[in-house]
């Protein structure tokens, strides 16, 4: 009988490349499929659904043209949706940082009554289902006339992202030596000046990672966009637009695939450009068990 360790090692040596290939396949394939369908004429897909590759000469950009041009010109108006998504996501990102940077600094550095209890408050944001929050917000926004406004949606996104933003930033801020602040205080800096001129530059990578994280959450969000903006097509975000149109049969699937690529591409670009920054920010502290 062969040695157990040796047998297992041999099996694993064969198994490992297979598993790696499978992992890459299941994660990448749906995205490649998306891309390939988006440049295919719809007739071609209906004729041969199982065919993956078509000749480059048959590729078409008509799908992209249709999905991006405005409804008035016979398209699906995704350019407008892109603008809406961008406005909401950028505004949510900027405002979240504006709120969470001082908040994270306070939690990381300053001693005040209730500092320890803050976490419970934040936990409640994630413990309760968003659908539970959605009901009163739906009612409230209907009353205030905020339903159908990008501003109302932005406000919800800020509330949804501030807690995790504070958590991530706090972890980073507490690694900055306190002696730097003391030195700044001796130089006559006020607390706010210290935060702006000493702490912020040092925390730039964390702030950047955080900004991208918030942006991605806001860009991808669906439920609240659905509840608040569904009535007027001019307000739709890209996610909402794609979801609404893909339910029907009026728009061809390949055109919607082009819309899907348009929705996904900004996120994929941001992600690969800043992968290290993002993954380290998210799991900071996890390696300590």
């Amino acid at each position: 009988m062969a040695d157990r360790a040796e047998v297992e090692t041999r099996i694993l040596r064969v198994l490992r490349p297979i598993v790696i290939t499978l992992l890459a396949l299941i994660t990448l394939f749906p995205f490649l499929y998306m891309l390939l369908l988006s440049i295919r004429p719809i007739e071609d897909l209906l004729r041969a659904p199982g065919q993956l590759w078509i000749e480059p000469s048959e590729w078409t950009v008509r799908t992209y043209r249709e999905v991006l041009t405005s409804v008035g010109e016979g398209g699906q108006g995704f350019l407008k949706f892109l603008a809406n998504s961008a406005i909401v996501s950028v505004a949510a990102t900027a405002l979240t940082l504006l709120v969470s940077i001082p908040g994270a600094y306070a939690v990381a550095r300053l001693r005040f009554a209730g500092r320890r209890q803050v976490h419970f408050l934040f936990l409640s944001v994630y413990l309760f289902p968003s659908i539970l929050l959605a009901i009163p917000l739906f009612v409230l926004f209907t009353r205030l006339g905020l339903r159908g406004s990008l501003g109302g949606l932005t406000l919800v996104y800020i509330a949804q992202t501030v807690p995790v933003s504070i958590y991530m930033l706090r972890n980073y801020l507490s690694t900055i030596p306190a002696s730097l602040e003391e030195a700044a205080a001796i130089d006559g800096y006020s607390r706010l000046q210290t935060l702006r001129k000493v702490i912020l530059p040092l925390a730039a990578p964390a702030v950047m990672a955080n900004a991208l994280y918030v942006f991605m959450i806001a860009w991808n969000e669906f439920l609240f966009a659905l509840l608040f903006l569904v009535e007027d097509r001019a307000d739709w975000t890209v996610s909402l637009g794609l979801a609404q149109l893909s339910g029907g049969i009026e728009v061809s699937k390949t055109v919607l695939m082009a819309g899907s690529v348009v929705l996904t591409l900004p996120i994929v670009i941001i992600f690969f450009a800043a992968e290290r920054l993002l993954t380290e920010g998210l799991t900071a502290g996890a390696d300590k068990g």
Partner: protein
Amino acid sequence: MGKPLTARQRESRAGLAYLSPTLVVVLVVVVLPILWTVMLAFQRIRLINLRRAGVFGQYTLANLETVLNSPGFWSSLWTTLVYTVGSTFGSIVLGLIAALTLRSRFRGRTLVRGSVLLPYVAPVVSVAFVWNVLLSPQFGLVNDWGVRFLGWDRPIAFLSQREYALNLLGWHIDVPMALLTVIAFETWRYFPFAFLFLLARLQAVPGDLEEAARVDGAAPTQMFRHILLPQLGAVIALLSVLRFIMTFNKFDDVYLLTGGGAGTEVVSVRVYEYLTARFDIGAAAAQALVLAGGLLVLLAIYLRFFAPRIEAAEGEG
């Protein structure tokens, strides 16, 4: 006003001042709405008579009663539980496999590690749409290949078929097809999350520990069982709780894939139906409360029976 503030008092005030924007936002958009949901759940409110609703409205248990007795509520709660447990388990197991495989060096590791995270970062609407098209019985790749290469009799309606009669060695089993597909989707979308956390923890395991075991002739499965798994215990426990909470409350994925049909109606999708199709705000709020309550009970049970073990594992780790 007299006395000047001490440094400690000033610090305390600054702390609260810096945190106050956060507190205001969370209070207005999270805490107050939660309290309001509780109120709504105990009032007879529809969108039409919304104007009359207030703090001093008529309180009643009617919503809760209607909800608990309504057809399909308990089965929907059960579906939510199956969906949550299945997806949590699936994503952690797949995440663990990914973390163990992608841990050591190979050519193209950076690229593979990056692409493995794609399902998690990509917009849910677009990945749900791609799955929908891939699995479509009319023009989906999976069904086309299944019929052509795997010898399926006819296309399988993965997302719209409640039950699929499977013939396995002479046994007839009814498989809850749509529910399983939704669980598979959820596993696929969230295993990267587990992968990230597990990989971070694996990289912190001291190398000499494994080296020593290898010198002693330990087999890979023994090393996993006796060296890696104890180190990962705390992270796995944390992931289980996090994923359980998130999936239990999840709305988007099921709504986008099946719309809650074919035996996949989770509670959050039901709440949405009550809110937007029936405009029955009271009943919607009551169901959302039952959902949140159910989660709290499960968490309490978990913490009561498993928390000591987590702490013990943390102590070791």
